[in-house]
């Protein structure tokens, strides 16, 4: 009886199999097409400038847990040094582009956010390193903040340098360049230490409670966090730096149009400080530029001459002017956000112990704008 059933249904079985086979082949062909599209965009032949203009929103990944750099206030507003650069880029892209500040506080997933297109630019106290540049699919623009890895200790601990830290317990933020610098430095010193790794806030709490003798992070981070504590004077930030930590905006690899815009916005804000263009006077400077350099930076004509676009057609020549009008020049951004927590000793007479790395070159610093011409 079973055999007879099989015989009766045999022909329809074959028809079904043929339909299915055709469906599978069609599906595979479809996948082959879509995945090669995917490959194109993931390999970055995308154009973020156009994509942001089309969507009308710039998605900027910032930290929300570090006072002065990127911090979420109880009322929900996010502000800080890094956030100002997000606003500058937003303004540079022109009218009709909104800004969405995406939470990229978690150090261990920030590059994934960028690679997966959740954010367009990462401005989150991120250090440029060779391995990140090569292996994590990220390209870095001009450094916005020069700092180094420093150490905070309890004022009564008697620790004056890393050479005093043998056998001590050291709180260190997980998932950063900091851990590796620390391990390397203590190997070089031939000293042992006990690490206690965790998030920003957790390591700070442990250090303040006396769970660890030393707290290490970027010196600017230590200064900004200790500066807002009620008992700030119980702690000392050592002058010693064990690394270079140039903090810079990151963009996806293989999108040079976008990288150029981000890069030259940062340079433009630094140049504005060198040229004395401020948020207050940018409009009058644009109306009546004092020299050709200022005219070129602001994208306006000098004494009736031609406007030089410098090739920035996708954002038009006045993108730096809009950025300055939105947030001010580099010096203003610094003063309005970081301020005296990490004082900028911009003077050739500054003491060697004072930090002047983020000053213009004429005052002993290394924040050096590349020429706009």
């Amino acid at each position, binding site marked *: 009886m079973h055999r007879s*059933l099989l015989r009766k249904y045999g022909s329809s*079985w074959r028809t*079904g199999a043929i339909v299915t086979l055709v469906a*599978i082949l069609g599906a595979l062909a479809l996948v082959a097409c879509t*995945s090669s599209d995917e490959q194109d965009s993931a390999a970055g032949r995308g154009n973020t400038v156009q994509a942001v203009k089309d969507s009308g929103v710039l998605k900027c990944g910032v930290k929300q847990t570090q006072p002065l750099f990127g911090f979420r206030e109880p009322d929900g507003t996010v502000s800080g040094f890094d956030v100002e650069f997000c606003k500058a880029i937003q303004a540079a892209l022109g009218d009709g582009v909104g800004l969405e500040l995406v939470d990229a506080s978690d150090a261990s997933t920030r590059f994934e956010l960028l690679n997966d297109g959740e954010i367009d630019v990462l401005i989150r106290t991120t250090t440029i390193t060779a391995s990140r540049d090569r292996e994590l699919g990220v390209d870095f623009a001009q450094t916005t903040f020069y700092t180094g890895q420093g150490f905070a200790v309890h004022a009564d601990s008697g620790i004056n340098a890393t050479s005093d830290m043998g056998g001590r317990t050291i709180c260190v933020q997980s998932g950063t360049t900091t851990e*590796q610098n620390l391990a390397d430095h203590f190997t070089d010193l031939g000293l042992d230490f006990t690490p*206690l790794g965790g998030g920003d806030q957790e390591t700070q709490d442990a250090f303040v409670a*006396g769970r660890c003798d030393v707290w290490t992070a970027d010196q600017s981070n230590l200064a900004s966090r200790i500066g807002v504590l009620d008992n700030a004077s119980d702690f000392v930030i050592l002058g010693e730096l064990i690394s270079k930590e140039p903090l810079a905006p990151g963009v996806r690899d293989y999108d040079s149009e976008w990288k150029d815009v981000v890069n030259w916005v940062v340079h433009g804000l630094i140049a504005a400080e060198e040229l004395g263009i401020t948020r207050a006077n940018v409009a009058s400077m644009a109306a009546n530029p004092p020299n050709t350099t200022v005219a070129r930076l602001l994208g306006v004509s000098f004494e009736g001459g031609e406007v030089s676009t410098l090739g920035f057609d996708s954002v038009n020549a006045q993108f730096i002017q809009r950025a300055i009008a939105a947030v001010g020049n580099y010096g203003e951004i610094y003063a309005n956000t970081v301020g005296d927590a990490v004082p900028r000793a911009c003077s050739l007479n500054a003491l060697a112990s004072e930090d002047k790395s983020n000053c213009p070159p004429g005052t002993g610093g290394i924040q050096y704008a590349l020429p706009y011409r």
Partner: protein
Amino acid sequence: MSQQPAPQLPDPARTPLFYQRGFRSVLTQGIYVALTAIVLAYVIASLDLREFGFGFLSEPAGFKVGNQWLVDVDGVTNSRITMYLVGVWSTLRAVLVAILLATLVGVVVGVARLSSNWLVARMAMLFVEVFRNTPLLVQIVIWYAILLVGAPVIQNVLNVGDFLFLSNRGIAIPWPVPSDGLWGAPDWFVGIWVLALIAVGAVAMRVRAKRQEHERETGRILFANRWAMGVFAAGALISFLILGVPVSIDRPVIEGTSYAEGMLVQPEFAALVLGLTMYTGAFIAEIVRGSIQALPKGQTEAANAIGLTGYQRLTLVILPQALRQMIPSVTNQFLNVNKNSSLAYAVLFDDLFRVATIVQNKAGHALEMFFVIIITYMVISFAISAVMNVLNARVTAHRI
């Protein structure tokens, strides 16, 4: 044998193709296969795009991991996978200790909830309701805050007779370490000592089994457990007189701002284990209570009728039967301990999840790393299940 009547089938020639059974079954399965193929092809294509591979795990780690015990790995020369295994070891330690303590807490509190003493029963209920109804993450963070802020800083360490030290860097307690025996014998001496211990233990177990057998045959109470412990103590005393103790007790000391020697229970480990123990213990207490209450009342009455004491009634009649019901539910709780241990992320404990995120931050390859994390947790869970299944088979060996 009666002949079955042949089913009345419709004539296939007149049924439309779409309504024919063979065509339909092949079509639906075909669509399923096709969709699976699409998903697989898509996954493989995107894996290829991300340079999927595990080679990055054997590169030097470049960072150091805290909370090490019985291992000493520096991280500058060791590979990423080595550091990950140190994290796995930390997780295993926390999970094992938490499972043991949670079982203890659960049984005691579960039995206490059924106590006829009003105060004991209400205290047990309060314990269960507090720890069962608040999130574990919150509990762990609170335990950690209590240990960090509540305990003195190491400069004002609480010193209990140079024997136990308490500060917010942890609790340091004396700990046995291998040392020379009575005659200053070499290292392998510890081996003989361990063998002697096993031999004495075996003899004690044999005595226990014999007396239990006797107990069953004659019905007389022969105190098998007490006898076994007595035999073990006597054997240990004899071995001590002959062999000495090749173990010395290492007392903790304070050097600068660190503990040295002894055994250090760090606040991170303590907060995680406390959280897991109390939370899981509350659930196990409810399982214990439920399993006992599920027993017919006649069991208690019968035990009372043959004149068993309260303790005997519990240990000889009630718990052995309740155990049969408990084990499957308790196994689930043990598996939860394993999974919940990843909440160590909230305190500064370098468990496998945190080490994995450090590796991922340095090397990228998030997909591979999550794959490794998932496999690790599953292996630990399967191991716990396997042990519990053996236990379950043993307690359910006798049909009732």
